[in-house]
């Protein structure tokens, strides 16, 4: 008895990547494809972890032998993409220096952490896990798929060349102002960062000049290598910035060094929306229930989504989990709608906008044939408080099912809801 249970547990735990070869068709749901208008009576067909088709039920062919799931009365939309989160027990740079581009969060993630399960319960399927904002540059971020993984390798996304996909976390404003060697003023913050980027430019030029000749190559420097990836556009800079003048400082540095940047938090977006739009950079915003908590967030407003939309800027949302709860990510976009943002752009901000900001828009963010089968089933309208996430699918595998007791525990909270997923399995096995 005990042996057979262990086998089941092993199968459950090792379900990563076990997408069905047999097609699955979800029919009758309201589809929100993001890539086009909403479809009242839709069909979504998936196979081998990819979307085969998404469209009106009447005109979408269901493959022979497909498993059909009646989803009438439900809403299906792409899995949510969170462009800024701190789930997985993430750690980044320490207090030894203000700029630490050599530090990788890859080396500090617990893939079984309860916060990952809670993010699945909130419908999040792709996430940018970031180190904190206490540094001018706190390390390399990673882009993950929220599969039920046992190790970081089970969830991390990789670039075409096999390297780990991720960006670089930077910050200005007050969080990174500390005792020396950290900056004490805003001007000093910018100077320290410019100094490092200027060094990286020289380092890159030496590498280019060497043209592959090992004798001419400069000594390896992990910090500068990280910054060169930024200069080369291989790593998008995810830049914490709140106050209007700090936002403009980011845009100034971006122009000087030409790196690719996404503005994060952007509390004063309402004040500089036109400047942001003109610079052509994306904003990953957070809406909080009240202003304040620290001086640089004192003017954070729910109208930021609407203001950026009106200015024509690309705008996405992020949880900044634990600042807001991943299980309430839909709620944040709904609050943006409350403050005047359009429904379409708010939905886009939970999905495609963020996919673009992570260079993942060809893979995730909409229900389109060929994209990853990442989607969520909702009990009703995404912007109603009464709506529940019923199921979350990643790469064609169901990773959250509200009818399962364990998943429901993560969704609702309660005794054990902050324990690692693996330890819950262990408890059950032990009880046999």
């Amino acid at each position, binding site marked *: 008895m005990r042996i057979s249970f262990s086998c089941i547990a092993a199968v459950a735990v090792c379900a990563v990547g076990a997408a069905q070869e047999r097609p699955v068709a979800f029919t009758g749901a309201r589809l929100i494809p993001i890539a086009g208008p909403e479809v009242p009576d839709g069909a979504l067909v998936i196979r081998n972890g990819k979307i085969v088709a998404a469209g009106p039920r009447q005109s979408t062919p269901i493959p022979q032998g497909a498993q059909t799931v009646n989803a009438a009365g439900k809403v299906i939309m792409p899995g949510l993409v969170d462009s800024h989160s701190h789930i997985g027990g993430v750690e980044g740079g320490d207090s030894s220096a203000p700029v630490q581009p050599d530090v990788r969060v890859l080396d500090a993630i617990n893939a079984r952490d309860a916060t990952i399960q809670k993010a699945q319960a909130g419908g999040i399927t792709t996430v940018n896990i970031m180190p904190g904002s206490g540094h001018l540059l706190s390390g390399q971020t990673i882009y993950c798929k929220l599969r039920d993984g046992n190790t970081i390798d089970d969830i991390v996304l990789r670039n075409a060349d096999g390297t780990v996909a991720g960006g670089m976390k930077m910050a200005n404003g007050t969080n990174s102002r500390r005792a020396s060697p950290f900056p004490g003023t805003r001007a000093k913050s910018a100077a320290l960062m410019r100094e490092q980027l200027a060094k990286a430019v020289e380092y890159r030029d030496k590498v280019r000049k060497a043209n592959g000749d090992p004798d001419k190559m400069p000594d390896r420097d992990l910090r500068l290598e990280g910054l060169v990836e930024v200069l080369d556009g291989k790593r998008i800079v995810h830049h914490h910035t709140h106050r209007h003048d700090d936002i403009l400082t980011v845009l100034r540095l971006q122009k000087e060094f030409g790196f690719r940047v996404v503005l994060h938090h952007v509390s004063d977006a309402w004040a500089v929306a036109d400047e942001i739009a003109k610079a052509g950079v994306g904003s990953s915003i957070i809406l909080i229930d*009240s*202003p304040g908590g*620290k001086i640089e967030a004192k003017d954070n407003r729910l109208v930021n989504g609407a203001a950026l939309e009106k200015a024509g800027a690309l705008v996405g949302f992020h949880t900044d989990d634990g600042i807001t709860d991943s299980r309430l990510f839909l709620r944040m976009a709904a609050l943006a709608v409350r403050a005047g943002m359009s429904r379409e752009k708010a939905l886009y901000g939970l999905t495609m906008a963020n996919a673009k900001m992570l260079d993942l828009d060809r893979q995730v963010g909409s229900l389109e044939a060929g994209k990853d089968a990442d989607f969520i089933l909702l009990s009703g309208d995404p912007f109603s408080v*009464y709506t529940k996430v019923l199921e979350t699918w990643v790469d064609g595998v169901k990773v959250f099912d509200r009818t399962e007791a364990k998943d429901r525990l993560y969704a*609702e909270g*309660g005794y054990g*809801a902050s324990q690692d997923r693996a330890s819950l399995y262990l408890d059950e096995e032990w009880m046999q």
Partner: protein
Amino acid sequence: MRAAATVWAAFALALPAAAQIAVTGETVYTMAGPPIGNGMVLIRDGRIERVGPAADVKAPEGYRSFRAKVVTPGLIDARTVVGLSGYLNQDHDQDQVDRSKPIQPELRAIDAYDARETLIGYLRGYGITTLHTGHGPGILVSGQTMIVKTAGDTVEEALLKPDVMIAATLGEGARESARGASPGTRSKAIAMLRAELIKAQEAQRKRQRPAEGDKKEKEPPARDLPLEAWIQVLERQKPLLVTVNRANDILSAIRLGKEFNIRLVLDGVAEAHQALDAIKESGYPAIVHPAMQRAYGDAENIGFETPAKLKAAGIPFAMQSGFEGYVPKSRVLLFEAAVAAAHGLGFDNALSAVTIDAARLLGIADRVGSLEAGKDGDVALFDGDPFEYTSHCVGVVINGKVASEQAQ
């Protein structure tokens, strides 16, 4: 010229008080009976004059009229620190906890309340008209609480009740705040509280019975502010408001309350789901944590469904915005009630928890909590289901005066 100016000034002053208000709602939730379809609330001289179907209650001439889809009583936040804890979160605007001593029941909330604090106006815009605010959680005994309206430029103008409860914290909050001093453990925290209460019992006894053979006229005892506060607790004039989250701490609080036969209000109760029978049996009410409070530390087992579980168990409870130490600086009662409503509590119970149930728990149901003739003119207007994310609070009336007209 001068006479004219004086007359004008007098008129201006008299105007707000004299303004009468008629609020019509497609649905009026009075909380004193079933909702009224197409209902009317008349407010005169600061108080509710009449409530009923618009067909029966005609607005007299000269009343300023408002119309909304949904009309409710002004919402009551049963536990917050707003006004003592400001939104900037800098040392100068944080007055909810003094850390010089672990036990300070003599600290009054009225001496620290900033009626012009930004967050008060912010919360008012979401229909919150009454706050039970004051000293915060995070130290063994932090001080007193009070009840204010979210209107008024001074604490005197805002005040509804100056001294309401004495705030205490058990569990990690009390332990960690001590920073190496006592209480360093849970047992020590309870021992310290018992010592205070026993000391107060002794003093109470001495005050009641003068020493034998004492022929001199009895002199009044020397003033002792902390002792006076504890005697009020022992005499059941004020409840002890105990912030507790872990189930064993909830049981410790109940044990303490029963030992001294004091009134207790349980605050937070993240693990109430593990102690429902004990709470029910104690007869103590609860002010449950904000539905969206973060899960960590003593509250790691917090759940969205706890308000629903308290309701099902028949435990009297109210809801709160609580205390936040970072971003956001305050939660919004309306938002917290919404999440509880959607997680098993339901619309009616959630609305009740933030209006009439809160008023009863706080002992102010004669003034606020429902739309009934004679009660304070506190009304919130919404353009849809108040709990829906995309609805707006479109108007707020406090003490019969329009306090907000901006959709929020």
